[in-house]
């Protein structure tokens, strides 16, 4: 027990833990208080619409963590992670649809879209979603299952590099086409929407929104700790070794399939969780979430923040989505230029992302501070615990 606690404590340095706790407290306690306590319209009041928006960002943060896990630490670039996110979202969405009961537009026991398709009863794959626990379980299991099957075959055949990225695109594209079909039974182009309540609480009530915000925040914090645990362990080092020199690892006697598969399915599980939390806050899930461009944008969050750092991708997700929300109001035409420029700029100039930039800046700053005084030995400065600087994870070694 003591050893377990110690291993958790060793995840961060003291400064790291302080930072983590400070941020968690601000986000989980401070911001909601700023929304609930000051009077509406007051200067200190956090506007109501920001709560579900930030909750949405937390879900994106979990996805960013998942992407970083397999891209930053295992070197596998997936351009189809949106499919796992969407599947988790659909599972939760199906439960929310069932929770509408007979209050839908057609006043029927069946979801509205089945009524206009002239279906008379619930298909077999909708059974069980009346129960929250079942839906939650499915939200985690289905993406994981799909990931396991796909990953098993892909990693076993040693598909890697750009080929792997392309077939993840094919996967998400195929699933998107499948879900766009009304006959598939998931609402087609409309998706699942018009949700009313979750576990008895109305989704339109502000208190529910705050609760969902808190749950998402907690999920993000826990996911972060879990990822940090994985990458700091021996397994994490193994993953990094697979990223950097897979052939050598194989010669050392390890079967990379198992480890890659583990990281891959864990990452899909996290995405499923994120999707399940996302849908009640956004109020709709539809096949557009599975489109290839969404998944490619997830990659840019990680690249902007800094791969292989876990914190960087969170920052990246927040910045990019924040910029999107601002720009599509203020200057819609410029948004795509900015996004495109971000892709180009980050890959060209910031291979280690913003965190890499801060890191270099910090080093320059520290070196500059030490310069006066010849007796001073620069090497004796205690540099902070080095964040794992990733080698550029590309197919060079393949």
């Amino acid at each position, binding site marked *: 027990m003591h050893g377990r606690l110690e291993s958790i404590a060793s995840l961060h340095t003291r400064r790291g833990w302080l930072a983590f706790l400070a941020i968690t407290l601000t986000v989980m306690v401070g911001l909601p208080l700023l929304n609930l306590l000051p009077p509406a319209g007051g200067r200190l009041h956090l506007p109501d619409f920001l709560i579900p928006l930030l909750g949405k960002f937390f879900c994106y943060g979990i996805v960013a963590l998942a992407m970083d896990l397999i891209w930053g630490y295992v070197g596998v670039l997936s351009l189809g992670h949106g499919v796992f996110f969407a599947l988790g979202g659909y599972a939760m969405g199906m439960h929310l649809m069932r929770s509408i009961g007979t209050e839908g537009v057609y006043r029927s026991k069946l979801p509205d879209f089945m009524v206009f398709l002239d279906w008379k009863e619930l298909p077999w794959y909708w059974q069980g979603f009346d129960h929250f626990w079942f839906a939650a379980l499915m939200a985690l299991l289905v993406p994981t299952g799909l990931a396991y099957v796909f990953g098993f075959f892909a990693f076993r055949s040693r598909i890697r590099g750009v080929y792997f990225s392309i077939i993840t695109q094919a996967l998400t594209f195929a699933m998107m086409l499948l879900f766009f079909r*009304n006959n598939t039974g998931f609402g087609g182009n409309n998706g699942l929407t*018009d949700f009313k309540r979750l576990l008895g609480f109305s989704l339109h009530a502000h208190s529910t929104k705050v609760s969902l915000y808190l749950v998402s925040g907690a999920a993000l914090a826990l996911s972060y700790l879990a990822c940090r645990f994985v990458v700091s362990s021996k397994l994490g080092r193994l993953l990094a070794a697979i990223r950097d020199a897979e052939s050598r690892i194989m010669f050392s006697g390890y079967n990379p399939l198992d480890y890659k598969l583990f990281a891959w399915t864990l990452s899909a599980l996290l995405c499923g969780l994120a999707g399940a939390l996302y849908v009640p806050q956004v*109020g709709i899930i539809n096949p557009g979430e599975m489109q290839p461009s969404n998944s490619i944008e997830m990659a840019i969050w990680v690249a902007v923040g800094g791969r292989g750092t876990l914190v960087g991708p969170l920052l990246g997700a927040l910045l990019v989505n924040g910029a999107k929300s*601002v720009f599509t109001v203020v200057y819609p*035409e410029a948004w795509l230029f900015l996004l495109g420029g971000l892709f180009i700029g980050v890959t060209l*100039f910031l291979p280690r992302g913003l965190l890499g*930039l801060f890191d270099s800046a910090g080093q320059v700053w520290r070196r500059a501070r030490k310069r006066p005084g010849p007796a001073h030995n620069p090497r004796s400065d205690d540099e902070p615990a080095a964040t794992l600087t990733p080698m550029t994870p590309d197919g060079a070694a393949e």
Partner: protein
Amino acid sequence: MNGTGKPGKTWKRVLGGLAMLATVASTTARAEETIKVGILHSLSGTMAISETSLKDVALMTIEEINEKGGLLGKKLEPVVVDPASNWPLFAEKARELIQQHKVAVTFGCWTSVSRKSVLPVFEELNGLLFYPVQYEGEESSYNVFYTGAAPNQQAIPAVEYLMSKEGGGARRFVLLGTDYVYPRTTNKILRAFLHTKKIGDADILETYTPFGHADYQTIVSKIKSFAAGKPTAVISTINGDSNVPFYKELANQGLKATDIPVVAFSVGEEELRGIDTKPLVGHLAAWNYFMSIKTPENSAFIAKWKAYVKKHNLPGGDARVTNDPMEATYIGMMMWADAVRQAGTTDVDAVRQAIGYQTVKSPSGFDIRMDEKNHHLWKPVYIGEIQANGQFQVVWKTKGPVRAQAWSPYIPDSAKKIADWTYPWVCGNCTAPKYVN
């Protein structure tokens, strides 16, 4: 491996400055008091092609109202947001418009998905939405005013025309649509309607293609073999881009409008701008307005639009056209403005009560009114044939505006429902009044 260039810290400063500018711009308070009007149309993504013109005509109407002195002594201020054809983003932007920008009314949405995703937001926050596009009906919300056609104001008259001698006497129908709620529901209604006209399922072929589908070879082939022997017509609810490859394939495979006429519900002057219309001459569309309608009101409307395009240098210049959803946006906005003047306030509840009494002289020359019971416009129905110059020639029209049936009488479940927001029903889809005396 080549080294990566590090162009220095200046770009970082520029980026920081831009970011600051953006945040400042978005929160700058306005000095004078205005009435804010929200415009919720996709300016990027797949729907940008159709929706950009609606934003432009909304801005034109606001300019017109402001030039005449504004409303209640204040100027109208448009708040334009771009949900980028992304349905979840529609809901988010709608919420932002109402809660952050405090708009008095919103004009927006095109696809039924976007409307369905913003509906809960408007109902929760008691906002007001004017929806200008033809749709599948089966809805009537307290917070929405529908200025586009319901099926009985577009689809049913079109089918009746096709079955008439003048329209070719069709006895066999192909229901071809894009796979989403509007075509599916409309086709369900049409199938039931055709059954009442003694046209059986053997004479109805129903097919769907996804958005953006481009290869219609097999489908046109199927239509040709299905049509062999009986006069056949195609009812196309294909939406957006896919119309172009469909029409091109029809023309190339030699299907003329005199053999198998195609009537489309989502093809208007704007969509024809992107197509070579010579091979399409004779195919039909059903709307409540055509740019080619010859009335003094329409000439004035078109002149206003062309002047606006010129003044603001909009892309397309002289080639810009007017179409039904644009007219509906214009009517909706004028109607809302009249209601505000009558109510003396922009308060949503007050305006809602006042709209039912408004009539607006529309470009089609008719006095159009909003039905206060089901929140839909009374609209005239026109059927037009495509001409080589991209305009429509009206071949049939109703004598005057037709009342919308929000719930189709041809679907057994819907036939019992009533949409009536006046006392004592006060309900969009009930079978009995809410308030019993």
